[in-house]
């Protein structure tokens, strides 16, 4: 009842919106700056003539994405000297000194990190989406009066909630082929998808069951006195009312999955965390964790916002 006066829930909602806007604006600014490549002549003018002179024909230039330039001179493969320049907002800066180094690093890492983020987000979305679909049947099955069905669904949920996701993932990828070679899953993404879907179906089933059971008993009774069948009652009355209550816990589950996806490192699937770790070890620096965490924050803020809007849309009748 007290949820009805909107004021108490509007405040965090607004704050969330502000956070999202700030993050998205910051990201947009970074990307815009990074893409404003200076003209090639600006770069050549910036390089000291003595550097090129000394290099003679052993001079080479690498241009990375996001306007990072690497020039080097040396004999054969041995690099005698190298300079890195970065072009931001039409200007060319030398990176070797001062605070531009980390900026250049982030720009260098960004493509790999975004590649990883793509895996993380797509795996989370399809795993939770298919998981929610499965979980509706699991939840209804567990609530069924038909004992074998309800026991089987209960056992499924018990198993997947009661064992570590890491082991489930490991087992799907490495364990199943040992049981029978027919069960081999060569695609790492597919293996991760299967493990995460099975797991989140179990969690979502409990969420859905709780939401359905939180619906007033009177709704079932009114439906029965009007002659609705059980299936009609579920489809027309109970599930539509459950959806609004489902959205916050499902959003929670989604954000948990988003972070749990980092476990796919164990089967060497290149998600955002895996990418971050390999950049960290090859660059011998932990700085890459900062942009990686910011990407995680942007993703979670974005999805919190989306789920929030969904919840609002399903609350029109409140």
């Amino acid at each position, binding site marked *: 009842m007290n949820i009805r006066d909107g004021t108490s829930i509007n405040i965090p909602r607004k704050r969330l919106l502000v956070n999202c806007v700030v993050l998205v604006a910051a990201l947009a600014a970074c990307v815009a700056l990074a893409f404003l490549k200076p003209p090639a002549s600006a770069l050549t003018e910036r390089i000291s003539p003595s550097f090129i002179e000394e290099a003679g024909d052993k001079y080479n230039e690498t241009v990375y994405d996001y306007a990072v330039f690497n020039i080097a001179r040396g004999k054969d493969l041995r690099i005698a000297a190298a300079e890195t320049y970065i072009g931001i907002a039409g200007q060319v800066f030398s990176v070797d000194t001062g605070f531009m180094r980390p900026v250049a690093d982030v720009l260098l890492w960004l493509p790999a990190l975004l590649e990883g983020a793509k895996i993380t987000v797509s795996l989370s979305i399809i795993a939770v989406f298919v998981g929610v679909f499965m979980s509706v049947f699991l939840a209804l099955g567990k609530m069924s009066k038909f004992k074998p069905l309800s026991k089987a669904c209960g056992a499924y949920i018990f198993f997947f909630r009661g064992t570590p996701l890491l082991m489930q993932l490991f087992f799907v990828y490495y364990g199943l082929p040992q049981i029978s070679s027919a069960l081999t899953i060569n695609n790492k993404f597919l293996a991760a998808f299967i493990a995460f879907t099975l797991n989140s179906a179990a969690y979502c089933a409990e969420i859905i069951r709780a939401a359905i059971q939180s619906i007033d008993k009177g709704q079932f009774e*009114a439906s*029965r*006195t*009007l*002659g*609705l069948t059980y299936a009609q009652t579920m489809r027309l009355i109970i599930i539509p009312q459950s959806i609004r209550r489902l959205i916050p816990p499902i959003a929670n589950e989604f954000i948990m999955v988003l972070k749990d996806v980092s476990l796919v490192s164990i089967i060497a699937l290149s998600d955002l965390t895996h990418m971050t770790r390999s950049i960290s070890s090859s660059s011998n620096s932990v700085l890459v964790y900062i942009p990686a965490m910011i990407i995680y924050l942007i993703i979670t803020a974005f999805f919190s916002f989306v789920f929030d809007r969904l919840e609002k849309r399903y609350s029109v*009748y409140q």
Partner: protein
Amino acid sequence: MALIRTENLYKSFGELDVLKDVNLVVEQGEVVCIIGPSGAGKSTLLRSLNQLEKITSGKIFIDEELFLHREKNSTVFRTASDIYKRLLLEMGMVFQSFNLFPHKTAFENVTLAPIHVKKMKKSEAEEIARELLGKVGLAEKADEYPSRLSGGQQQRLAIARALAMQPKIMLFDEPTSALDPELVGEVLGVMKDLAESGMTMLVVTHEMGFARDAASRVIFMCDGMMTEEGIPEKIFMEPENLRTKQFINSIL
């Protein structure tokens, strides 16, 4: 012709015997009010009739057809499912707590069951809904969600929703108990109109004024038994049973 008849109805919740040998008859066109102290089993009786509660034993006849016959721990007779559904739908129910569908508008609350259960054409169901909403004074509120209606309006909507299935008898379980006092009148008004239009009604109520004015018969229930019944004048003016007397004195 009796629309509802029970024979030796018993109902217990575990050890607790809530209905003891109830023999209820409601004739066509009658308005029967059930009064009695809280916990007497009035709600349980209504809910047993339309199968919201599973009776322990006894027989229920709806519209002179045997609907259910149970003896302790075994169902002796249950009608075929199509007949079962038809007889069940001859009873409309109005709950104390309304139990409207909160995610549907007033209009959709009324059209939902006719469309999905009776497979009525949408246009036909909508026509009936418009007529019924007008009858209960909610024509203006058709597109509102129940949460935007007052308690009295919600209960009138619940009455319209039950009537949309065109039942032969309406069961009311304390329809005004959850309402603020100033809203009771509008619901009782709709119920009186309904009674005058010839609807058969079985009403559990604490509104003695309504029982006196509108009832053709009053039943006093106590401890799971129909202790006394008769025309309102008799029950309210010269009750025979001591418990009835005490109850009437305590509330008047």
